[in-house]
């Protein structure tokens, strides 16, 4: 069991010498309150706080008058981050403020957080997980460690007996410590380091503020050796209540910070009026719910308060605590069957998570990038005082201020800042919905946004420079990761910059894309690039940026390269053809609508392909389709070509169908637009013998499967019109039934022929 069985022993260990120990739980307002009394009574020369020593330079900034809690000390080390959060009611905050009032020194006495390890949190796990806690909860009828802590300690908020309070915290934490494996993490070296600092006090009056879990180890024992120099860098940043609760990066802390912030406010002059606190909370919660359209009637509010008081008294405490309130709310509001994740309780706890967002003092110094991003966010009228995720609709085409806000969001996205998420709007990068007028964003300025920006600070002093540097770095990374020839990836980077308003500075990327396009062997990739670029290149294009470099030369390079590759198509391997033909279709569509492209050049190239004896059936069909569409080939000639190929008995079956296949890839619409072509195909297919047809069927079916359902219907209608038959009624016959029927039909015809009765079948 605990080393401190009696109150007197605990009191002697804590307060018996010039060094007074304050065992605390991080963010606990009751501990903060008692600590304030302790410091005022003890009047120390030095206050030691369990915080990493390398963070010491920030100490003066933490008591600046323009600082708004919560804030955090952010440590960066090789791309990893660790946060040391402080709220208005953290005992550490009170220690800093009291030290300033007394003129005492403040020492941070902990080892640097180990960024190479899992996030540190040894102070918290035992508060919920130990067998001691489970057994105590069972005895007292409490649900978990959080309630137990509140029941034992937060309920004593504002007590005058701070000695007794800390003695009890010590006893409690010593019992927790008893059942914990101390060697599992860096607890022991950290405590040695803390002892080293305490030894340096040399009899000066001091108060040592550490997690109660560590306090028993600080009374005596060997001091550690000074740790090696710490290479990490750190910043004082704004922090959010939401993160204070949710963040696992720094495990220590109580949940639902807004509740404890209220508690702290209510207890400034002694123990709080618990019922008044509960009443105000329920009233505020009711108002918040009403704003969302969920009404809580007055009788239900009264019932909630009555039940909460009743539950608190049943559980043997004068204080109405969080579990009492959430239980009462559940009993009073839920009218029906419900599971453990009941919506009212969830909404209530979410409400208590809080949304307040702090502010770092001006003197703390921020990396220029963060300052710039904050200024731009404020100029674009984003709310930086709360970390709630909010939607924002931007009319970026018509309103210049919205265009700036949109570019800001895109720049933040390039930096992976986690600030804004595009939920709807034109997708320039993917080439989708380019005509949309609005962008919908979900934005939230959280501590992690600041963390990411600080991390990105070395990329540039302002947001556009940093975003551009990031794009260029990513472009370089493509080369080193073996994607150097990936035209699509490079164009994506360029277009992201374009959308983020970095156009005027994208010269280097445009040059790189141009160089790569001039060498690209991939007709498909070039065609997709062409299509994506046509959305931005000309002043009439939907997302053109007049400040950006002229993309005309780049488009010309892509077009030239595609013409060249088109003429090489007859020598391409068969497996590359489908993709190349798709590219050719895109190129053809572009020349139809866009006067920037030289259509006769493409037609010339297509003619040369058509005349090339090495061109395969597939390619020939595709080219014939395109030529017919552009009026360069007579439909009759095309029809003849199709008919000839399908009927050519000397060819292999797949080759006989290939021309039709290629034709369908580029010009399916001609089948219903031009009678001659459809009639020729029909004639060719009707002329096939049953055996030929069956052999050709798989290849034909594959080709026709390219048509979409609408086109299939259209073609079917034309075919029925051509053959003069009524459309077949829908039946429930399956393909297998049909195949069996055909087989039977053939067997019967054969039998009749064998019996010399073939003329029966003809009737």
């Amino acid at each position, binding site marked *: 069991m605990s080393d401190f069985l009696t109150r007197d022993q605990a009191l002697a260990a804590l307060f018996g010498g010039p060094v007074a120990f304050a065992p605390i739980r991080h963010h606990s307002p009751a501990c903060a309150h008692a600590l304030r009394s302790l410091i005022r009574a003890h009047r120390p020369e030095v206050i030691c706080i369990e915080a990493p020593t390398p963070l010491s330079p920030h100490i003066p900034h933490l008591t600046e008058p323009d600082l708004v809690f919560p804030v955090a000390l952010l440590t960066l080390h090789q791309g990893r981050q660790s946060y040391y959060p402080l709220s208005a009611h953290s005992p550490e905050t009170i220690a800093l403020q009291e030290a300033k009032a007394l003129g005492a020194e403040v020492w941070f006495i902990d080892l640097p957080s180990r960024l190479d390890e899992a996030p540190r949190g040894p102070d918290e796990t035992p508060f919920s997980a130990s067998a001691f806690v489970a057994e105590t909860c069972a005895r007292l009828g409490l649900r978990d460690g959080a309630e137990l802590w509140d029941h034992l300690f937060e309920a004593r908020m504002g007590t005058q007996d701070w000695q007794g309070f800390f003695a009890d915290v010590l006893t409690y934490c010593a019992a927790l410590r008893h059942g914990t494996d101390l060697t599992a993490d860096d607890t022991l070296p950290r405590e040695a380091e803390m002892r080293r600092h305490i030894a340096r006090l040399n009899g000066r009056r001091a108060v040592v503020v550490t997690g109660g879990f560590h306090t028993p180890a600080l009374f005596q024992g060997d001091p550690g050796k000074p740790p090696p120099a710490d290479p990490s860098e750190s910043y004082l940043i704004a922090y959010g209540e939401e993160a204070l609760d949710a963040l696992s990066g720094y495990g220590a802390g109580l949940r639902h910070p807004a509740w404890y912030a209220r508690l702290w406010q209510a207890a400034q002059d002694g123990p709080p009026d618990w019922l008044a606190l509960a009443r105000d909370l329920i009233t505020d919660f009711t108002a918040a719910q009403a704003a969302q359209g969920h009404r809580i009637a007055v009788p239900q509010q009264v019932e909630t308060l009555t*039940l909460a008081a009743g539950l608190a008294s049943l*559980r043997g405490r004068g204080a109405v605590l969080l579990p009492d309130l959430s*239980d009462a709310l559940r009993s009073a509001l839920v*009218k029906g*069957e*419900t599971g453990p994740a009941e919506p009212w309780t969830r909404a209530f706890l979410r409400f208590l998570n809080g949304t307040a967002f702090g502010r770092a003092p001006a003197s703390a110094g921020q990396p220029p990038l963060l300052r710039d991003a904050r200024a731009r966010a404020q100029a674009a009228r984003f709310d930086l005082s709360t970390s709630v995720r909010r939607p924002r609709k931007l009319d970026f085409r018509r309103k210049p201020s919205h265009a700036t806000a949109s570019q800001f969001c895109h720049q933040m996205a390039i930096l992976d800042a986690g600030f804004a998420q595009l939920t709807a709007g034109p997708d320039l990068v993917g080439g989708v919905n380019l005509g949309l007028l609005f962008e919908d964003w979900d934005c939230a300025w959280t501590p992690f946004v600041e963390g990411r920006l600080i991390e990105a600070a070395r990329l540039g002093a302002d947001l556009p420079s940093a975003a551009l540097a990031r794009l260029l770095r990513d472009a370089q990374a493509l080369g080193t990761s073996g994607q150097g020839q990936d035209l699509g990836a490079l164009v994506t980077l360029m277009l992201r910059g374009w959308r983020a308003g970095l156009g005027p500075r994208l010269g280097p990327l445009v040059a790189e894309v141009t160089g790569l396009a001039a060498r690209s062997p991939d007709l498909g990739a070039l065609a997709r690039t062409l299509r994506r670029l046509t959305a931005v290149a000309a002043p009439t294009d939907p997302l053109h940026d007049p400040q950006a470099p002229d993309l005309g030369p780049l488009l010309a390079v892509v077009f030239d390269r595609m013409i060249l590759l088109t003429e090489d198509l007859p020598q391409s391997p068969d497996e590359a053809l489908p993709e190349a033909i798709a590219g050719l279709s895109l190129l053809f569509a572009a020349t139809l609508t866009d006067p920037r492209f030289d259509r006769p050049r493409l037609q010339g190239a297509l003619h040369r392909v058509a005349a090339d004896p090495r061109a395969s059936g597939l390619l020939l069909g595709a080219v014939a389709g395109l030529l017919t569409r552009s009026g360069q080939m007579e439909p009759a000639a095309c029809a003849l070509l199709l008919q000839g190929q399908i009927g050519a008995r000397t060819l292999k079956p797949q080759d006989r169908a290939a021309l039709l296949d290629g034709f369908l890839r580029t010009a399916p619409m001609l089948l219903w637009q031009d009678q001659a072509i459809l009639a020729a195909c029909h004639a060719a297919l009707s002329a096939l013998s049953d055996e030929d047809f069956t052999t050709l069927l798989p290849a034909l079916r594959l080709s026709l499967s390219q048509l979409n359902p609408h086109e299939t219907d259209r073609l079917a209608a034309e075919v029925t019109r051509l053959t003069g038959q009524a459309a077949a009624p829908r039946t429930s016959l399956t393909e297998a039934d049909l195949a069996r029927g055909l087989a039977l039909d053939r067997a019967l015809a054969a039998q009749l022929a064998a019996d010399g009765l073939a003329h029966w079948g003809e009737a």
Partner: protein
Amino acid sequence: MSDALRLPAEVIHAAELSALAAEPGPRPPGWRLTPQAVRRFICGGSAPKFVGDPGLVDRSIVSLMGRQGLMLVGEPGTAKSLLSELLAAAISGRSTAVVQGSAGIIEDHLRYGWNYALLLAQGPTPQALVPSPVLSAMKAGQIVRIEELSRCAPEVQDVLISVLSEKVLTVPELGEDHEIRARPGFNVIATANLRDRGVHEMSSALKRRFNFETVTAISDPVAEAALVARQLAERMADHPGAAPAPLDVIELLVTVFRDLRTGRLADGTAVASPKAVMSTAESVNVAHAALLDATYLNPGPLGGQHIAAQVQGVVFKDDPEDARKFRAYVDVVARDRGGRSALWRDFHRAAAAALAKSGV
């Protein structure tokens, strides 16, 4: 040993209740125990009488201290009635003021009826009036329990509205102003099943007068196994010849029920969950039947094969789809576990054989 099959809670636990009643401390008017003692009676000690969320018990006790009635809802077999009986026994010392809800219930069962012989002889007099359990509980300042409230017709349910809000019942036959006012300590605990077929929707006026509590299946497997073992031992008290059920067999049973109830194994693998009610109460029924089987019909130590034979009866009640889901469970989960444990192997073999016999 009593010759009744089952005695009310206040009789079974009479000694404990009188000890608790002697404890000092403030108590709400009309209550025999302090609220803390009520809680300790229900879920305290090494063998809690109600196993489940202690927060639920707290909320129920506090609700009953106020003016709202208490409505216990939830899946069948989650010990709603047990909880209501324990609450009534602890608070009022009497759990027998109870109305069994059904489609046949009429208003008189909730208000009052008449002794017709006296009525004819004397006319309407207080002596001729036959109080309902509700009325007698109002007079005595006790808890009245209404089981399966949602099975009563809505117009009958609505009798409770005025009882709960005014705490008064008028008897116009005895005179214009004759009314019976409830004494302190009166309240209503209703249980209801909101999901079964053949239940009536409650009016919102009635719902407003109740605090609802959902009783859920026991979340802790160890506690559930302990509860099943204890209840089984209580039921087998009349069969001194039976050997006690081994705990590992009970654990197997509880595991099967939990897996099928939640549709999820302990390691998170999903299994198809049958529609049948796989409650703790049902698992006690299965264990009881299996142990009787092992004692009298197929003598031998209770094993997986006895459980397998009885589980069928629970799972196959009406839906053939359920049987297929159970077969999938037997073929995949039980077979796999059978590779590591003899108990599961017996269960798997017997279940597979029984399934084959019933043609699933």
